[in-house]
């Protein structure tokens, strides 16, 4: 797959026009049978943007993402373009404003090919909870080529589309692993930045203390290009950091001029299968070749991370989703009273998993249970954060598997807890708010892609991308 830099060179050298490039991706996306887009934008819709992008290339004044066709997870408000969160309740919602992240991408010249399918309200790990049907992973199990596999979730449409090559890259969101897990299962790169890097303004809210936008790409360098665009301060999000952002591309591909130590948490590797163990062993060899010191580290809170997450995230979700009442926007059910409208709109508009999360959240926040569950989980969250900080006194990065397994079959109908276990390696990082990247590292015995996760310290995305780019070169996954 061509990188953003390569495509930009093609456009600068006039080997292809912006229009031709867009049409090319649009036609591929239209023909795709993987259901990775909820909504595609025809070339005609983007005509003005295509023309102004071409004009900038003609003048040699192209912007950092000029003319690059991107997928956008259908969770970002896009002005005049349907934004559904893959839910019936927002099926007909057309925002009157642009999210900060997508506005940044437009300001840098990129073109939106459409809105990527995802789990309903980003709640899921297989993209099967979408109101618009499951997304299909472009990869096939070589020992069972008839079955269709999940792309992971919740940014499953984004990961599937990037892996299939029907958009150059996509922007997803990650609450407990929703960028990294699908990236791993589809064999692409997925970066969750530090909480507070990218504005949440205009992103349909799931769990506000965890949600973060990030790129899903075919290369680490592309992830750096996109992060440069989407990471910026925004006065409309009080949790968005105001520090000056690094140029994330500068260090990509360069060796470190200081000794680097990577910690591998032994407690993460207790129960992993042989496919996953092989990824870690293989990564260790490459790290040694890169003269990286490897040390064993051990967390004391890992066993409590999923429990903490499945109290806090549903609690925040139940509060955030209270706004869907059928009055101001979204689906309205029948009713002769306000109360009936509220109840019918919500009961008919939300899908099964979303209702489950709202119920969990309502329960743990309700009188008599708040201290035992919600407050307790917030205390444990601090212990998890402290646990990471203790380990960052000794190491620069932490290496873990991204997922406990390869992509599984669509319709396998995992019970909720088994599904939640898919995020066992990604959730602790989310709770700590740290940046983490999933990198394709190899194939399973069934020929399916697997990824490793590199975790950095707060706002250290620049060195994290640098480390990832060096490993990427070692893995040669795309060759």
């Amino acid at each position: 797959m061509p990188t953003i830099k390569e495509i930009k060179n093609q456009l600068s050298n006039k080997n292809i026009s912006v229009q031709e490039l867009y049409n090319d991706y649009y036609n591929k996306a239209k023909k795709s049978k993987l259901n990775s887009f909820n909504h595609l934008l025809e070339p005609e819709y983007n005509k003005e943007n295509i023309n102004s992008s071409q004009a900038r290339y003609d003048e040699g004044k192209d912007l950092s993402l000029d003319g690059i066709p991107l997928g956008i997870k259908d969770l970002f408000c896009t002005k005049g373009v349907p934004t559904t969160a893959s839910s019936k309740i927002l099926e007909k919602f057309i925002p009157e404003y642009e999210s900060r992240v997508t506005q940044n991408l437009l300001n840098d010249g990129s073109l939106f090919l459409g809105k990527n399918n995802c789990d309903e309200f980003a709640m899921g790990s297989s993209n099967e909870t979408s109101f618009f049907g499951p997304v299909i992973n472009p990869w096939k199990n070589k020992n069972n080529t008839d079955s269709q596999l999940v792309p992971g979730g919740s940014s499953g449409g984004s990961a599937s589309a990037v892996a299939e090559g029907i958009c150059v890259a996509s922007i997803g969101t990650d609450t407990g692993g929703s960028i990294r897990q699908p990236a791993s299962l589809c064999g692409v790169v997925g970066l969750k930045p530090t909480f507070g890097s990218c504005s949440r303004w205009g992103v349909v809210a799931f769990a506000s203390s965890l949600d973060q936008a990030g790129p899903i790409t075919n290369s680490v360098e592309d992830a750096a290009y996109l992060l440069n665009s989407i990471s910026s301060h925004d006065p409309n999000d009080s949790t968005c950091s105001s520090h000056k952002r690094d140029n994330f591309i500068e260090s990509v591909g360069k060796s470190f001029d200081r000794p680097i130590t990577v910690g591998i948490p032994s407690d993460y590797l207790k129960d992993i299968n042989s496919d996953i163990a092989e990824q870690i062993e293989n990564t260790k060899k490459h790290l040694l070749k890169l003269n990286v010191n490897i040390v064993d580290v051990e967390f004391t809170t890992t066993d409590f991370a999923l429990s903490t997450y499945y109290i806090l995230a549903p609690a925040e979700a139940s509060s955030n989703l209270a706004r869907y009442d059928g009055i101001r926007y979204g689906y309205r059910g029948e009713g002769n009273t306000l109360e009936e409208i509220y109840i019918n709109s919500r009961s008919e508009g939300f899908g099964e998993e979303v209702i489950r999360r709202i119920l969990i959240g309502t329960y743990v926040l309700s009188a008599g249970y708040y201290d035992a569950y919600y407050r307790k989980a917030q205390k444990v969250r601090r212990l998890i954060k402290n646990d990471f900080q203790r380990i960052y006194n000794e190491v620069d990065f932490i290496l873990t598997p991204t997922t406990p397994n390869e992509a599984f079959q669509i319709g396998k109908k995992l019970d909720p807890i088994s599904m939640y276990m898919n995020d066992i390696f990604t959730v602790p990082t989310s709770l700590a708010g740290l940046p983490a990247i999933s990198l394709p590292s190899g194939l399973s015995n069934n020929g399916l892609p697997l990824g490793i996760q590199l975790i950095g310290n707060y706002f250290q995305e620049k060195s994290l991308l640098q480390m990832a780019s060096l490993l990427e070169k070692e893995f040669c996954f795309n060759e």
Partner: protein
Amino acid sequence: MSDINIKKVSYLAKLELNEEKAALYEKSLSEIIEWVDNLKKLDTEGVEPLHNITEKSQNLRNDEVLKENSTEQVLSNAPEKAQNFFRVPKVVE
């Protein structure tokens, strides 16, 4: 088993569940709550709750009125509207 009263929880969440669904969710919630109950094993005496990871860097802006939307825009997604208002069933007798 935990003591989940699914009728009460769904009432608080403004959700209506038929008998079959209520039974399914009650079972599902009980299992999940039992699963997360392992937190009780952890001593958190004296630990301050962590509300937000960026707790030291809240960036508040001035409370200034900005006119960024027209009435028409605000109402553009309303399921029902009348003149310049969202339309709902009669609330006061």
